[in-house]
């Protein structure tokens, strides 16, 4: 059981974003995708839950081929996957508590009396105790992001996809969220896919790291392997030295 993306192609109009993207994510591991802004990391992540459909290629989640599933099966698959959006994507007509509880209400096997407790627990995990009755507009960007994270973990999904969960947070909160991601993985066996630009976080939380470059995975390996990579593109990126990447176009 795992997530497997095989030779995924996806273009928006003329613009090809994914050009044969392949990545396998083992169960119970946390894999981080790194790559430049606009390289297609969010696009790749959205393919896993069927928010975008590939022009070509296959995406397997467990034994389901996401790109072939009918609508109802996609919804069933999504109950196993939590998604943390890059910009939180909270429902602004609902309170934070309602946002976090929304996924739970959709789960037929979760008793509705249990929802408030679970919501509180999740808000506590992301350090938002007491914010349940606020509206998203009354929260700061970082707080919203954490609320989005709470919403994704509330249903205790088997997979959680984090799209830049710590971007824009202060170092202490970043550490708290990193800790949370690690705990989700270690204590609950959650399989995580993280997109992050924060290299310190990346190497702290990841079992494996994959670099997306020019529509394909340029290199994939353990944090140590990536840090020791001799590919100038990878080195240039993680060390923040654009001069290394210049002229290296494949």
């Amino acid at each position, binding site marked *: 059981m795992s997530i497997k993306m095989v030779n995924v192609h996806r273009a928006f109009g003329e613009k090809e974003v994914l050009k044969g993207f392949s990545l396998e994510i083992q169960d119970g591991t946390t894999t981080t995708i790194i790559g430049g802004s606009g390289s297609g990391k969010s696009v790749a992540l959205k393919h896993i839950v069927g*928010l975008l459909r590939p022009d070509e290629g296959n995406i397997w989640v467990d034994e389901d081929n996401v790109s072939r599933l009918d609508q109802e099966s996609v919804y069933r698959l999504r109950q196993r996957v939590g998604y943390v959006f890059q*910009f939180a994507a909270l429902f602004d007509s609902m309170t934070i508590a309602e946002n976090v509880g929304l996924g739970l209400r959709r789960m037929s096997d979760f008793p509705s009396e249990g929802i408030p407790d679970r919501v509180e627990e999740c808000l506590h995990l992301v350090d938002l105790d007491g914010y349940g009755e606020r509206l998203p507009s009354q929260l700061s960007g970082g707080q919203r992001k954490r609320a989005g994270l709470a919403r994704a973990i509330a249903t205790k999904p088997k997979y959680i996809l984090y799209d830049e969960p710590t971007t824009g947070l202060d170092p202490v909160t970043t550490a708290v969220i990193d800790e949370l991601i690690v705990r989700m993985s270690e204590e609950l066996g959650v399989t995580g896919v993280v997109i992050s630009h924060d290299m310190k976080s990346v190497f702290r939380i990841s079992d494996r790291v994959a670099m997306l470059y020019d529509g394909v995975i340029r290199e994939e390996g353990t944090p140590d392997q990536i840090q020791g990579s001799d590919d100038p593109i990878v080195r240039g990126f993680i060390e923040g030295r654009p001069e290394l990447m210049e002229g290296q176009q494949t």
Partner: protein
Amino acid sequence: MSSFLAPIRMVGRGALQALTAVGRAGYLGTDAVRALRKVDLWGPHLVPQMSRIGVESVPIALFISMFTGVVLALQASYTLTGQVPLYFVGALVGKTMILELGPVLTGLALSGRVGANIAAEIGTMRVTEQIDALETLAYDPVAYLVTPRVLAGAIMFPMVVILSIAIGIAAGWGTSMALLDITSTEFIKGLRLFFDPWDIQFAAIKSITFGVTVTAVGCSFGFHTRGGAEGVGQATTRAVVISSMIILVLDAFWAAVLLS
């Protein structure tokens, strides 16, 4: 492309865009109907949407039709001089209000109020990925967002239209008595002269289709919003323009189909 052909191309592009919009709204409307079986998703939102789409539209609809009634009465009496008896003012106000102005003016006003509101709301949800978020939480956004709105539109538009008609006729009546030399009895006589119960059904049928149109077009433009705030603005404007156009076309269509 010579500048001479540019206007022609613009017309062509406008027509294609309008047709695409109609097609998309049609698709979404069909999906919304198909999603009717997911009662657990749209059920809780029906009453709030009925309140937003219907109840909150009552004041503006009544305001418009009240003045329409007044103007109709005044213009009718101005036109019907000489050989035509004045009680025809009643017939004219009643017939025009019920058959045409009640449904169409209310429809147009509500395409501005309701259609724009829906397009902006759903468009914002689209560009802030709230619709994607709904999907990841296993909520069918069509059943959750579109169905209750379209259904509320179908139920509440006729209600608002009937109230508008009533107020419009009452306003015409009041005007006739206060400003024109027409007695209440004469006005009612004229009102009854050409009245046909079928007229009310006609108005109701028409306004149901207007309600479905305005809400489905609003939702459709919201769903297909691209870009940020600017995209939302564009979707809103287009939703109003397109649904107003469809309302007028539908109006002619129903007149041709049901009144001939």
